[in-house]
């Protein structure tokens, strides 16, 4: 039911995007819709661009970390002038499930790093003071966050009646960046069913990128932005761990954009969106199967800012740059009756091995968010252009940064 409904909501707006409509008939899974919205786009690595020298995991996605799953609900509906509460809608929600266990009752170690605080991650207090996550992580448009928090909490309570009665109530994690330039953001055109669908349809495996889920209405370096992901897998002698990153990129101004050190923003200065509003925000989620304690995860989350910096960002005053990191390795239960619980921890001498993959995967995830996002026309016929892949390839080749034959 929710699948059909979500899909219909996309198809209504598809004409204005030049998207190829899905075959009508039986309900398509959400990834099929999200695939339709990336037609003609490619991941940076498939274009021949390389970020650092570490190898990605098999999916080059946050889901390379065992147990992590991702789901999107993409809401594209209506065209033309803004009518508050009616659209046009260019919004959505992305759900990251940090492990495949009983989420509210099983926690994993986590940290939140507030790199630039003009943003919101609901649930930060519990992550900061208790050092764990026991909830899905939702990423959405700014004005949706209260609703997404409420719908998620209601959903979790409905699935487990003991929560809040005999077991501590969960605190959902809800992050945001603003989709106000393309979307009827004040209208908050997101429903309970949209949020539940993102959580329930979350899957391991390939992750849709670009203008999908929470990233639907986002703008990065004044190109179309959104969701991007990447991963790195360390060799056995460096620990053998995987680091996966997922970003919702909605930040940065064109002149500073760099990709693998190439000043792409200066090379492609045109195709600017009509509104020159302030640079906005980026949410970065780092996942790893390396057994890290909250303090170590905080240090990992800080390194995400260095991957962000490689793409040229300066984290402007108006930007909400807040990063989460979690480790799937130790699963803890609040109700553990044992007097002593064994916890695995990465040795001090191996922590640095996790920094380089974090930095590289963050840079690549941000670029994927742009190379996978389509040109989008939103409210008041405002157009945000996609990063043109042919020109990007030409620029990278001219700077000697393209791997031609793979």
């Amino acid at each position, binding site marked *: 039911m929710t699948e059909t409904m979500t899909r219909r909501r996309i198809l209504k707006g598809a004409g204005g995007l030049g998207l190829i409509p899905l075959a009508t008939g039986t309900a398509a899974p959400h990834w099929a819709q999200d695939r339709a919205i990336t037609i003609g786009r490619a991941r940076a690595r498939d274009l021949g661009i390389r970020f650092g020298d570490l190898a990605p995991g098999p999916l080059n996605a946050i889901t390379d970390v065992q147990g992590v799953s991702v789901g999107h609900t993409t809401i594209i509906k209506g065209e033309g002038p803004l009518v508050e509460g009616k659209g046009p809608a260019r919004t959505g929600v992305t759900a990251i499930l940090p492990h495949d266990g009983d989420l509210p009752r099983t926690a994993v170690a986590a940290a*939140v790093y*507030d790199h*630039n*605080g*003009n*943003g*919101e*991650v*609901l*649930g*930060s*207090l*519990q992550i*900061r*003071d*208790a050092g764990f996550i026991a909830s899905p992580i939702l990423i959405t448009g700014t*004005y949706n*966050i*209260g*609703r*997404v*928090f*409420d*719908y*998620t*909490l209601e959903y979790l*309570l409905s699935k487990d009646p003991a929560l*809040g*009665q*005999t*077991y*501590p*109530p969960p*605190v*959902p994690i809800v992050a945001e960046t603003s989709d106000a330039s393309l979307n009827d953001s*004040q209208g*908050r055109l997101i429903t309970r069913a949209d949020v539940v669908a993102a959580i329930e349809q979350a899957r391991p495996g390939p992750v849709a990128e670009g203008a999908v889920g929470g990233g639907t209405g986002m703008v990065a370096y004044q190109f179309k932005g959104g969701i991007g992901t990447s991963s790195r897998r360390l060799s056995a002698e460096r620990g053998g761990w995987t680091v996966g990153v997922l970003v919702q990129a909605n930040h940065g101004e064109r002149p500073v954009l760099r990709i693998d050190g190439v000043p792409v923003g200066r090379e492609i200065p045109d195709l600017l969106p009509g509104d020159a509003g302030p640079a906005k925000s980026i949410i970065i989620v780092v996942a790893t199967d390396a057994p890290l304690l909250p303090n170590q995860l905080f240090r990992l989350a800080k390194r995400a800012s260095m991957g962000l910096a490689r793409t040229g960002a300066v984290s402007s*005053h*108006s930007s*909400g740059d*807040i990063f989460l990191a979690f480790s799937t390795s130790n699963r803890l239960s*609040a109700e553990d009756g044992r007097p002593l619980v064994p916890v695995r921890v990465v040795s001090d001498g191996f922590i640095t091995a996790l920094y380089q993959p974090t930095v590289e995967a963050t840079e690549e995830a941000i670029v994927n968010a742009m190379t996978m996002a389509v040109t989008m026309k939103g409210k008041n016929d405002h157009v945000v252009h996609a990063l043109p892949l042919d020109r990007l390839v030409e620029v990278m080749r001219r700077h000697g940064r393209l791997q031609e034959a793979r």
Partner: protein
Amino acid sequence: MMSAFPAGPKNSLTDVPGVRVGHLTRRDPSSREHPAHIGLTAIFTIPPEPRRTRPAAIVTMGGRTEVSGLNLVDDFGFVTGPIVATSLRALGRVHDAMISRLTRVPLGWPPIVVGLDDGRLMERRGPLPTDEEVARALDAASDEKVEEGVVGAASGLVAFGYKSGVGSASRQVVGVNPTYTVGALALLNMGRREALRVGGAAARVAPSASAAPPPLLGSAVIVVATDAPLDDRQCRLLATASLQGLGRLGAVPGTREGLVAYAVSTGVLMTRGDRTASQIELPYSPAPVVGALTEAAADAAEEAGLRTLTSVAPTAGTPSYPAMPRGTAERRQ
């Protein structure tokens, strides 16, 4: 209660000029154990003008609930609007209602909403506040003496095995010139009965066997305001001092219990994203003044915390969480 400083005229948070407080309470008379379905308390320290900010800090000890806006306050050192306390279950709904409201009234961004786990008394799956109800509570904020007892965000709270309410107190910081005021508002939702301390001694309380359990996620929230001009680091010091005031009552952080302090200086008003000049001049209180303020903040917080119990009318308790008997506190003073 011992203090080097006298209480303000109202002995209330609203003794600090410009501070306004409003409650929303929707009662359900059909249930004795669930006496209220909805409650929230809104505290304004900033005039209703666009893009105004004041120096502030949020200090937490073992937070297990949620305070929205934490990342902004931590990084920027200011607040942009009211702080609203409500049920943890209602946090998302109230946050969303604030977003509905802020297109019409300058409320700042992001909303600061504190959630308290009132599941011991409140119907967790009951109806949540509407946009209209939240707007009414925000609009009803006034600078009169804060209504205390079982009202607003305290509707479903329990502390030390008793029904707890809204508590407030203030101190006039005499001895510095000019005389500043420090005001506090407390919400207590934590603690076993044996933990309660009054005036530095264990309170004479009923045997613990009869006491109902504390909340699953306990919290203590203290809001402190002063008209002394402070920067955010000094606000942080006041917030920390106020947590020590609550600690005198026996409020201790634990794996399921946390304390949250919010301190703001109404002596400084700034403009968010100000580009009218590249530099501005701000007033600033020197160290000796701040030293007196922290002492007053601890005292005001301690009294506000105790008043969360003493302000509950004898009939306002529930079968499981009665009002604290009269004399429990007075005997020790």
